[in-house]
């Protein structure tokens, strides 16, 4: 038993070191450095808020909070999946010089993005407190939502990482998809502004359900609607199985592609 656990511990040690180093390098490990990371969603938020508050404000309850919740979640999804495409290349030296399960790279890349996401969520919660002025215990439900988002991100990452090793321009393609996705997710508009046919398309987007659930919890103080979240879970599971199958078949060949 002890021998079986050893590779797992080794992987864990390596993974946490990678996440840690990534974080330290990004912002020099300082609090003020972290403000740079926050600036990106903040600027988006300010621009979108000022652009749309006149149209959406009267129709959407608590538009500022509505917008920021949508944007913080989308930002995590977009940043994490984009980072996964290049994760093998960013650690080219390791792949060439040591033998280790390459899935460590995928998971540590997702966890690095999660790190930033959690910090953004802290800022979001402060903002939420200021706007709402009171705390509901239901807010803890945001934790399973974050875990579900991470599950979706990791599942997709296995597929994207594998494609990324073989196809040079997947980063470009994914960048375009993420830009389109920003508009195909109800971040700064609400679902009922769209025709029923268009609503159906938007409902296929897993991020729609994740963002809606977070808003149900934080803005309306309600339990999130389960069918949507079950859809996200099922979709992620299918992606994960697909991802792991293609990843395992090709991970041994990664080194020959670098």
């Amino acid at each position, binding site marked *: 038993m002890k021998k079986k656990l050893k590779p797992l511990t080794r992987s864990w040690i390596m993974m946490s070191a990678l996440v840690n180093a990534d974080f330290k390098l990004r912002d020099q490990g300082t609090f003020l450095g972290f403000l740079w990371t926050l600036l990106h969603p903040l600027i988006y938020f300010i621009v979108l808020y000022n652009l749309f508050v006149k149209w959406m404000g009267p129709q959407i309850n608590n538009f500022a909070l509505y917008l920021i919740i949508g944007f913080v979640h989308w930002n995590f999804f977009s940043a994490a999946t984009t980072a996964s495409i290049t994760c093998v290349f960013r650690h080219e*030296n390791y792949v060439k*010089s*040591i033998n280790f399960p390459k899935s460590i790279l995928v998971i540590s890349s997702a966890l690095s993005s999660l790190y930033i996401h959690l910090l953004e969520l802290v800022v979001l919660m402060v903002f939420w407190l200021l706007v709402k002025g009171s705390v509901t215990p239901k807010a803890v439900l945001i934790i399973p939502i974050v875990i579900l988002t991470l599950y979706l991100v990791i599942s997709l990452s296995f597929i994207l990482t594998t494609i990324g090793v*073989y196809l040079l321009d997947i980063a470009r393609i994914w960048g375009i998809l993420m830009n389109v996705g920003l508009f195909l997710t109800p971040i700064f508009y609400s679902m009922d502004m769209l025709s029923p046919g268009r609503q159906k398309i938007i409902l296929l987007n897993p991020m729609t359900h994740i963002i809606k659930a977070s808003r149900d919890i934080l803005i309306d103080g309600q339990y999130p609607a389960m069918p949507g979240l079950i859809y996200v879970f099922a979709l992620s599971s299918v992606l994960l199985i697909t991802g792991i199958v293609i990843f395992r078949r090709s991970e041994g060949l990664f080194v*020959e592609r670098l």
Partner: protein
Amino acid sequence: MKPVVEARNISKKFNIGSRERQTLFSSIRHTLSGEYPKVELWALKDISLYANKGEMIAVIGPNGSGKTTLFRILGGIMSPTTGTCDVRDEVSCIFELGLGFNPRFTALENVYLYSALHGISRKEVDKILPEIVDFSGVGAFMGAKLSEFSSGMKARLAFATVIQTVKGIILIDEVLSVGDIAFQKKCFAAIEKLLNEGNTILFISHSISGEIKKLCRKALYIDKGNQIAFGNAEDVEKLYIENSVGK
């Protein structure tokens, strides 16, 4: 007792050209037209070697002879196209000195990071840290950023970390020649200690010089992927030198 490393008839083929990543359009074009830019290269052909526990073996040969590819296969980083490779102990690969070293981290942070890449926890590093510091001779500068180090200091720190953390079958790719004479002496003593503790060392070199000669009894000589000789280190090296000078 069975040898700890046993490679039988290892061959490795690379497809040059397809190795490059393609763009979406070029891959569609190649799939449709059926032509694929492909040149086959046999980097290794029929290589066999074995190493017993506690042995030190040199792999020599000119540049581009497939030495690094062979080590990647022994280290489990690549799989051979044909042939089998049995490795019956933990493997430590030292292919790049200071792997993962980052100039923006302090020397100490780099030691932790490097060790973590090899699955060694902070706690375990703390136990051997005094030896690493002592061996590298970096001393008071452990808290300094690596970018402030001279290249010699960096190499010594890297080597000190490596030598204190490896065990089992140790594969070393041309990193043995760092540091000044005094440091070389220390390295030699450390290698001798590793061998006495029952570790096995395989290393890539262009020559089996000086003190290493006393420890290294066997050598493998490969050229352009072909096995030229495997056996007594002195004889094999002699052959290598004759062949190289003769050209």
